[in-house]
């Protein structure tokens, strides 16, 4: 079957941090996760936006928690996209969230119309994969070509991020193999990545300028200055760092296109914490 933007839809979950997806592409939908302060539950980006979330985080007595969408939430999105013969549901790493399972459970009742893909990553990286899928849909593609794209994305796309503190990751149980770095007394900036869908520690540095230097080193080592180099940047209350990263990309790789620049939403922000900044890249 020939897949196109007319007959194929894309479903993201809100951890892709791409809230205006359905405004930009009529064949896209976003299924929100939930963020909970005490007894109050909010749909990510829909009922609470990043600005309000970080404001509330500052004063909250208990830190928020998050929960995955229900299968019913996904079912509703699939139903809404009734006019499409094929749906790709790109979910946040299954090792970080149960979202993938909800998406799959809902999909299992639709025959083979919905294909759920565990992106093994999070935030802007999911949006970048979705954009790569969309580019193929717009020129016409096949299931096989999408499969190859997803495999290559998992192999070749790059991601480094840093946090102000590992507390948020540790508390939410998403710290993965960086667990040994938690509870440090010195103010350490961890440089991390996601590998096989979970958090992997790369390096520890001290000082505010060091993380950006480390980002530059990793970015330079693993990319070339070619057209088609696509970059994403995401931050949580770290405008300055985001600006520094944008400059870094323009200086090092003038040919690169910054296709996603976003804040981390309430759900991702719950697990990463303020001060987080991430750099994503993919040659496509």
């Amino acid at each position, binding site marked *: 079957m020939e897949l196109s933007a007319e007959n194929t839809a894309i479903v993201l979950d809100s951890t892709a941090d791409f809230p205006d997806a359905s405004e930009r592409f009529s064949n896209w939908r976003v299924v929100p996760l939930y963020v909970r302060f005490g007894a109050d539950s909010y749909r990510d980006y829909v009922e609470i936006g990043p600005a309000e979330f970080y404001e509330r985080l500052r004063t909250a007595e208990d830190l928020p928690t998050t929960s995955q969408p229900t299968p019913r939430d996904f079912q509703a999105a699939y139903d809404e996209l009734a006019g499409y013969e094929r749906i790709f549901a790109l979910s946040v790493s299954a090792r970080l969230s149960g979202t993938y399972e909800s998406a799959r459970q809902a999909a299992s009742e639709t025959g083979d119309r919905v294909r759920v893909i565990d992106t093994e990553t999070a935030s802007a990286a999911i949006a970048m994969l979705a954009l790569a899928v969309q580019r193929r849909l717009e020129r016409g593609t096949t299931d096989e070509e999408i499969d190859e794209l997803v495999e290559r994305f998992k192999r070749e796309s790059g991601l480094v991020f840093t946090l102000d503190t590992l507390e948020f990751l540790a508390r939410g149980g998403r710290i993965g*193999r960086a*667990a*040994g*770095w*938690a*509870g*440090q*007394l*010195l*103010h*350490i900036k961890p440089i991390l990545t996601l590998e096989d869908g979970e958090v992997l520690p790369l*390096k*520890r*540095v*001290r*000082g*505010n*300028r*060091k993380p950006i230097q480390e980002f530059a080193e990793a970015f330079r080592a693993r990319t070339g200055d070619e057209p088609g180099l696509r970059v994403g940047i995401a931050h949580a209350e770290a405008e300055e760092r985001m600006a520094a990263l944008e400059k870094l990309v323009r200086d090092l790789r003038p040919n690169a296109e910054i296709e996603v620049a976003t804040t981390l939403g309430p759900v991702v922000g719950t697990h990463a914490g303020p001060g987080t900044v991430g750099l994503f890249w993919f040659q496509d």
Partner: protein
Amino acid sequence: MNELELARVAETALERSRARLDDLNVYPVPDGDTGTNMLLTVRAVREALEAGETDVAHAALLGARGNSGVILSQIIRGAVEGFEEDRSVATALRRGSDAAWAAVREPAEGTILTAIRELADEAESRRDDELPELLHALVARGDEAVAQTQEQLDVLRKAGVVDAGAAGLVEILRGISAHVSGEPLPEAVEGVALTTDAIHQEASRYRYCTGFVVEGENLDRDALERELEPLGDSLLVVGDATALKAHVHTDDPGSALRAGTAIGVLERVEIANMHLQSAQREERLTHSGADDRRTAVVAVVTGEGNRRLFESMGATGIVDGGETMNPSTEDVLLAIEDTKAPEAIVLANNDNVVLAARQAARLANVPVQVVPSSSLQAGLGAMLAYDPLADSEANARAMEDAGSAIAAGGVTVASRAVSMDGLRVERGAYLGLVGDEPVAGGTSFDTVAASVVDRLLAEPRDVLTLITGADEPELGPLLARVAEQHPDVELEVHPGGQPHYPLLVSAE
């Protein structure tokens, strides 16, 4: 004279000269403690022999403390092997000399190495002498060699002292010579009691490390010591008629405290459960998912706060010690074994610990790499690069690089008046160091600390870390000054609790 007798004579000789040997330290900070290290090394041999150990070389190896102790242990090993060869003093000394020279990476003339080689030369030229005459001649040659060390080493000439290790070796020989010929030893310099830090090094089978100060009138040090003696080991009672400081490892801290309250008012009571401390460390380990780790880190650290800093960075073996109290090879070896990791890194954190650490690395059953970090600050910097999943060689490379990127300094209190490179510092005054170099001195902590910080921040740096010592200085003025003059530098202050250095500083 059998081996045990020999060890006892050597121990007595070193006890008599320990204080003088310690005072020969080149630097005006309480550094090296050569006399203490040599004494504790020999004492470990004596204790092992009394406990039934027959392998003297092994006992010396495990008991070796500090660089001088390690070299001495090598001399002992070589001497034992040499003596077994042909029962001659000459061969024993020659083998001892060879073993000592081989043990040191960059051997220098003007040290204990020169002394042992010259003693071997002397003995070889007197193969027909009777033992008493030979020993007399060796002592004379040794004294000459010690006197010459001042001409051979620049640092010794500048400081006007002779080499402490060489002097210690000759003191052992002098004791043996006097014993053999039945002569009395020359009048000894007055001894000083071991510090609490030193006592803490010794492993204990008791549970509670108990310490207190008792204040009162007409306090009897010996009487308190007799009261505490039956309670445990590692006993230390020091002080005068108005205040005594006591320290004992015991299973019955209550009785120890009662012995104190019986004669005066207790102060500064400290009871630490030594077994619990290691149990807690183990528990932390299991909870941090450390099971799949390839390489563990053993760090030689002094001060409770510093211990916590290293543990929080992932070090799972902490050996108490540092500049003022060098751990023994055995201490390091036990810590390596305690980590139960397939490979290990040892962070020396002091130049005087490096040899003992290397010796422990050779003795260990698993691959061990020593990172010769020369300061606690460099060690912390090295910890940044520690990767539990990588092998010890990769870790050693990365950690050494990370550690050497740190600029380290500190403020200490001069243990005696010193004049170095035009800088005159009185005893008891603050002395500022950058690396090992004295850069400032005076009675104002703020002024001395400020010039250390200024030197460290002379080139652009991101983070300035201040680690306060057991004698915690008032940092307010210094912090205000740094914030004003170096607004871009991130400041961190941590309580380290190290002795002798009110402040350690690192810039990176």
